């Protein structure tokens, strides 16, 4: 039976509370993982393990962390993602809301992009 949006959110929330030591009410759909919830790279690893377990899915590293695109000179010019690079990012992460990022796509801002809502959308795309 497919999981409802609420069920997905609840399990993602549990995983984030566990991994980041934050309170339930801090984990809102709009909260950014890095800026609002204080996630560091070690935490992303932990979050991946917890989500894989909670949803019985496999999360290949490049699906959540497109470092290969962001460090490719074909897709990045002077620290800004090119049109070709944006297309590549959208292809890699169709579930992510890249609208805000696209307005000023600086590589240094990408890390702070991901929200709890994006994570739920990602899980949704994997469990179907």
């Amino acid at each position, binding site marked *: 039976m497919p999981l409802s949006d609420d069920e997905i959110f609840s399990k993602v929330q549990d995983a984030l509370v*566990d991994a980041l*030591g934050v309170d339930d009410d801090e984990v809102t759909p709009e909260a950014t993982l890095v800026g609002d919830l204080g996630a*560091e790279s*070690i*935490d992303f690893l932990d979050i991946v393990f917890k989500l894989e377990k909670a949803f019985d899915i496999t999360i290949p590293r490049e699906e959540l962390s497109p470092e290969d695109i962001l460090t490719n000179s074909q897709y990045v010019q002077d620290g800004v993602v090119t049109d070709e690079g944006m297309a590549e990012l959208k292809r890699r992460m169709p579930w992510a809301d890249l609208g805000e990022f696209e307005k000023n796509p600086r590589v240094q801002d990408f890390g702070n992009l991901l929200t709890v809502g994006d994570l739920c959308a990602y899980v949704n795309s994997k469990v179907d």
Partner: protein
Amino acid sequence: MKYRQLDRITSLFPGKKLTAERTLRADEEHLLDHFPNFPVMPGVMMLEALHQAAIWLIKTGDDFQSPLVLLREVRGVKFGDFLSPGETLTITAEAIKQEGSRITVKATATKQGRKTVTARLILEKTSSGDPQHVGTDDDVRRRGIKQFHELFGDVATTEETA
């Protein structure tokens, strides 16, 4: 105490909050194994500094009445950075919850403001469970008080939470 992980207590609100320091010395023998090419304080040793801070926090809080303060659980331990020889950890431990004889302590160690380890520790005030005639509890209690003064001297206490 040879496995002492707190050099000195810098502030103490008994039962509530304790801050302390620990400097990693270049001649600490375990560094030869951890790691031969990259000497750094083992993560669990930093965690032990938090643990010892929690123990003294609790013991001073009830005037050393409990013979034993045992670690029951550790949660959410994250190692953020390494500590190299010559560097100093600032340890902060705060009691955040008490349920019966179990106390939850939130603790952090930082170097120059950067967190090297954070953890939530749950410790329990308890007694040895040995038969009365053996006298373990009295013995342990007495030794605990003596040890605190030997390790840290006269520690000024504060009533405020800074």
